[in-house]
């Protein structure tokens, strides 16, 4: 049994140590909001927060995160929508929606560490793939989310 701290709760799972966190979340804990796109750390669909940082859960063995605080899209905000989710709504970012949980988690981590990111910061930090091409709206929404967080809107 491996003990995990997920979305402020403690859970125990039985899985082999090399199982990627993504599959523990999805198949064992049924937290299906975290998506599978490539399984190789290349697309960001599986992004979660570990210790406040955006991490691609498909390439993290579950044994490596046993004592760390993990947040998934389901636990992003406990009191109404997170500023990033609000901004995503305002800019109507989504198309198929599949990349969006990972994209939102990546954006939320970016803002947590850099509350006023400029275009260059966004370019460098938001490397998730959106096959539907929602990038122009992602950029606008991150800027709006920064304003919401700082009380500017």
């Amino acid at each position, binding site marked *: 049994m491996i003990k995990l701290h997920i979305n402020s709760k403690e859970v125990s799972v039985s899985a082999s140590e090399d199982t990627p966190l993504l599959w523990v979340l999805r198949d064992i804990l049924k937290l299906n909001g975290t998506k599978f796109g490539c399984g190789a750390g290349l697309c960001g669909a599986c992004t979660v927060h570990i210790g406040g940082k955006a991490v691609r859960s498909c390439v993290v063995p579950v044994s490596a995160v046993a004592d760390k605080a993990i947040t998934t*899209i389901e636990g992003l905000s406990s009191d109404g929508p997170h500023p990033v989710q609000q901004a995503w709504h305002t800019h*109507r970012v989504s198309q198929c929606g599949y990349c969006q949980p990972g994209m939102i988690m990546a954006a939320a981590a970016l803002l947590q560490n850099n509350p006023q990111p400029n275009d260059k910061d966004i370019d460098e930090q938001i490397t998730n793939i959106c096959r539907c091409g929602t990038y122009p709206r992602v950029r606008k929404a991150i800027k709006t989310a920064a304003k919401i967080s700082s009380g500017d809107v």
Partner: protein
Amino acid sequence: MKSSRIKRRSFLHGVTTVSALATFPIAISGCQTTPTMSAGNTDILYWVSINSDNTVTFKIPQPEIGQAATTTVSQLLAEELEADWDSVRTEFYDPNTNLDNANVYVWTPTLASLSANHLFDPARTAGAQIRAMLISAAASSFDCNQDELFASRNFVHHKSDGRKLTYAELALAASAMQPPGAGQLELKTQEDWKLIGKSIDRLDLKQSTHAGIKYGIDVEVPNMRHAAIRQCPVYGGRLIKVDDSVLNGFPGAPKVITLKGGHAGYNSPVPEGEDPDLWATPVTTSDAVAVVADTWWQAKRALDALEPQWDEGEFKHTSSDSLRASLSDKLTKPLDLSISRGDVATAKKSAAQVHQAEYYYPFMDPAPLEPLNCTAVVNENSAEIWAGTQYADEAIEVASKLTGLPRQQIEFHIMHSGGGFGRRAENDFVYQAVQIAMAISGTPVKLLWTREECIRKSFCAPLTLVKYEGAIDAQGEVSAWVCRAASGQAGDQAYGATEFPFHFPNSLIEYDRSTPSPIPFGWMRGVGYTQHLWMNFGFLDELARLAGGDPAHMYRSLLHESKIPLGIESREIAVQRVNTLRRVLDATLELTSWDTHKSAEKSGRGIAVSDTEYYPGYGSTSAKSAVVDVSLTEEHGLSINKVFIVIDCGTVINPDIVVNQLEGGVAYALTNALYSEIVVEQGRVEQSNFHDYPILKAHEMPEVQIEILPGTGKPLSVGEDALPITIAALVNAIADAGGPRIRSLPIKLKQA
């Protein structure tokens, strides 16, 4: 004009016939409909369920892959039903209901960007019919005339005495009313629209920000097991053997199941009585090995440990290069389809300049982000399937054939798809999941492909080689145009060459798609226009530059009635077409200040304008143009600075959704142009994941400016429409900036 058309069909001719099967308004033959009720909810005319809490559930007649049909079709239905938008719920249609009722949903596959066009009248008509039935039920309840009543926001009101009834109260009686026929229905006119034409939020917007959308990959069924799959790496290969004893002691109780390759239906509709192999493309799968285990990770680990032996079959020595060589050889002889006009040879003799070039398009995988998956359980007398597919009507037929169960004993749940772009038009993954479920009868199983499997075993846009020849006369006009195109075995995409909207006094257009291909064909976003339009515009741009003129003005002068040869078939349609395109081009020149714009050094601008008509008079595609601004720098290679799109897409149901689709289309086009290439070597795909089959990322996305021109009539295509024009404008912008002439995709320049 001489033309020989051997097996020349357009799949969309077929589609039109299929859709015509549905009769609108919906007529219920015989006496009354049998109301279907569940938990106090009443289904009316298949399209709508009125719920006991006075909300409404719309049956969305198409799978959702991100194109937003869930929202746009709901706008159409709600508009005429006078439904309260906040009360609208949706669910996907049931393929059996459609197949058992003469295609009552009219256009169910998510294909060819047709949802808005094909469903515009049917959805509004269904809404109006159901509203009329509710009103007539209220009239009998109030014992008054129908014209004393009106419907608004899920109530029927009496105009003068204040009485009202909810739709829920009326639903059961309404469902037993005879639906009004064509003559008795009057649809609202544009001035009265409250929902159509408004940028209403997508119905799944909130869910999209909270991971609330349930995709196929998210299906959970009690006692479900998980399957991973590996197919013969060479298309059409057979399994010789696989030793499962190596899995002893592996966790998750892995079980090996071998799958026979076979025929998993077709990838687009075929009209009744027609030969499907001429109208659509058969979907054939290779033999495969699957492992079923308690979790997917266990199944995958076990699968990785297997060493199946394959008979790799006829394509084991084929490569992209050898296919290209075969096509090149093919192009030395006259081709299957040949359309000639005037006298090219004489025009060449008297030409001031003659120019030749060869253009190339590689295999491409549509690569939706959600990997292919399907959940199935097959019992002795029933089956249940959950899948994100673009073509559910075919998927259920495929399952019925495989299991031997009548369709009606199979329950099919359409799930949201994390993208499709054509790849989910093939139901190969459904075929495999059902095979696996049959092998473990009674146990539900979710089959999920790895990304590697998705890239290696895709149904690709066809590898295509085109030879061009052009003549320019002493006045600098194009006097001859020769375009001879050959691709590996594919669906009919001849229109990419034949329907280029420009006419030249002398021309020869040829097309062939008969050369065996090591990768099976699939429709990919923008289909034949994505392969051919940039080539056509590229070569025309080459000619314009040789003639020394401004390409945009050359296009403008060619888009003129006087350039359309007298005596061609459907000349009127051709005239209308050039007039529309000229109008869009003019709007584009104005928007982009084309005539006064000066590009900086090492910078350039390209332009393209087209519709995406499959044959003269097809009439459901929009007219659109793109202008792309680029610069070339030592440091970065190519930077794409800005993309303008101008579109006339007829009546617009939801402007913001049009904009979102076009922005996304630009991103998709740039991925095609800059990155996408599936290379076959020794019958195998060399690429495997997003490191060697990259997708455009946020930092590479240029600014996009979109102008929607005021349009009338039925809505026209949008979903695929940014692709062909963006690629075409891009390659010409690179030439304009002094960069190389791009004749082969992907563009091999350093990217900013």
